[in-house]
């Protein structure tokens, strides 16, 4: 009798430790702060930890394809055919915005107004001075210096660059054909800074410069920002509400795996450079229980994590999108074809 009890205890112990095994994930650096925050709260609530390596989106895609992690994370969505080829299911977790940071003597935060067309012109080197007629036309009586514009870009491959160049490709045909859209592109002018901190350091130090950084970073470091003309012709302030407005009008089902761009969405308050960050899991995972644990984690985060996300200046997904994601999870099955969530 005693023996059986001991055995049962041991068995329970093994089962318990198997359940408490950490969920493994790797990829994008942009959502790393919120994933770790969620993980901390999730471990307190359920006892299951998350081991997330922020090695960059490219690394995350490599790792999930190699099946070394339960989920991969990428800032740039994979295209439908790539998802199908590798048997992956993709879904968004949180959103963020990209804002132009500027450093012009005498111009206060939020006073300078730009359009997508002008931004593209600046980063192509065609608009060279701050008092260019195209910029003056947008700014009325704002006094702009007769000084060269110093554009600053991200030198490392990054989701931020992907979002920014996706926006420029949408609003400028010339940008689309000449430079295009990727995690890093061939910049014709400007200096490169590594990471958000590299870009902001350069913008702060170089007079008459302009850069682009994630909203959370700009806010926490109190960078001076410029406003951008949105699809409806307004100049909204970069706030969580403006990013949510961009998400509200989007048609998330337009692309497989919710891989739409939230850039230049309709809506009078929509911030024009907004994007979601994505998770990738295998549709038929070799270890279904690991992926199941990962999906449970994200389900928990959708239910309980919005406040934590807002605290860190990330933008939670609209609840209808969360429901659509849960429906999409039905496509993740175990070996017998049964949905694991």
């Amino acid at each position: 009798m005693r023996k059986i009890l001991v055995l049962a205890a041991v068995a329970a112990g093994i089962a318990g430790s198997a359940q408490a095994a950490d969920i493994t994930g790797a990829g994008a650096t942009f959502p790393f702060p919120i994933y770790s925050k969620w993980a901390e709260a999730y471990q307190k609530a359920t006892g299951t930890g998350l081991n997330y390596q922020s090695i960059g989106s490219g690394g995350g895609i490599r790792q999930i394809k190699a099946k070394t992690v339960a989920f991969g994370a990428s800032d740039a969505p994979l295209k439908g055919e790539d998802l199908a080829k590798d048997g992956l299911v993709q879904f968004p977790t949180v959103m963020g915005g990209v804002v132009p940071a500027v450093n012009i003597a005498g111009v206060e935060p939020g006073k300078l107004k730009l359009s997508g067309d002008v931004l593209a012109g600046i980063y192509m080197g065609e608009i060279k001075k701050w008092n260019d007629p195209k910029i003056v036309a947008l700014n009325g009586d704002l006094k702009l210096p007769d000084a060269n514009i110093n554009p600053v870009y991200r030198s490392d491959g990054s989701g931020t660059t992907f979002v920014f160049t996706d926006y420029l490709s949408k609003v400028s045909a010339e940008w689309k054909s000449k430079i295009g859209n990727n995690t890093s592109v061939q910049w014709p002018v400007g200096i490169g800074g590594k990471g958000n901190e590299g870009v902001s350091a350069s913008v702060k130090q170089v007079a008459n410069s302009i850069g682009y950084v994630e909203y959370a970073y700009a806010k926490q470091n109190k960078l001076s920002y410029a406003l951008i003309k949105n699809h409806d012709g307004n100049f909204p302030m970069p706030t969580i509400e403006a990013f949510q407005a961009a998400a509200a009008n989007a048609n998330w089902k337009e692309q497989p795996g919710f891989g739409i761009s939230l850039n230049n969405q309709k809506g009078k308050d929509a911030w024009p450079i907004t994007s979601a960050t994505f998770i990738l899991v295998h549709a038929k995972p070799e270890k279904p229980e690991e992926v199941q644990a990962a999906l449970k984690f994200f389900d928990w985060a959708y239910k309980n994590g919005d406040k934590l996300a807002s605290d860190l200046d990330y933008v939670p997904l609209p609840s209808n999108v969360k429901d659509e994601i849960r429906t999409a999870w039905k496509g993740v099955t175990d070996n017998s074809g049964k949905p694991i969530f």
Partner: protein
Amino acid sequence: MTAVTDMTSIPAAPKPVARRTPKATFDVVFRNASFLAALLVLALLAGIMLSMIVGGWPAFREFGLGFITSSVWDTQNEQYGAWPAIVGTLSTALIALVIGVPLSLGIAVFLTQLAPPWFKKPVATAIELLAAVPSIIYGMWGLFVFAPLFAAYVQIPLSNLVEGIPVVGTILYSRSPSGLGIFTAGIILAFMIVPFIASITRDMLEQIPSVLRESAYGIGATTWEVVRHVLVPQAGVSIIGAIMLGLGRALGETMAVTFVVGNANRLSASILDPGSTIASRIANEFNEALGLQLNSLIALGCILFFVTFVVLVIARLLVARVKKF
């Protein structure tokens, strides 16, 4: 000869042989172990070389010689060329040597020949401490402290001065005076290699027997003549070795350069403009690279490997030539 015959004439004593046997066994084991250790280095080198060539092969096959000569680095259209990075690597290293070598030799000569004894120790220690500073510290210092000062007090005045002058007005003019660029990277690299070159050179100069120096002074030589005609020829080979060690570090330095080089994947006629080096480009793009871009980055690494190898070979040849004299 006689000694040998004497030896053979003595009757063989079994005892010493017995005592020698365990030692001989140990010798064999030790010889093999150290041989294996040496072999491991070769195997490691071959392994790294092989994996770099295999990893970079798709890029070399796709672009051929154009990979080295092309200046395009376009991830959108999957076109990759290494030329701006190669030029950036060589020019930053060259600037570092031009600034760093005279500085290091000056420090070494001062410390060994001229400095008062109470001053020697602190300076020598400070130099060794500089060598131990992690490169990311140099990078951050360069970005946050040095670059703004350099922009304000060198780049902007210099650009105003040379603007419009042919040749000089191109090489030394910066369109956007950010303080970041090839020249800044060269200066930071110079700071980084000075401790290496200076401390090795100092050790070498100290090892020169003082009788040589004193006899030179004895026949009435000035300090300069002693340095120029006695010390430098004596330590010449080692000094070249020290410089090559510094050059090797300058070529491969990654973090510090990435912070201050400006990270522009294009060629510029001005040395004050932003550029990139092989190592900085790999550091920037490796995280997010996939497919052909990844192959191209590995191929870049392969080229850096090759450049460093060529530099080492040239150093060896130089040392061999100096030794002959």
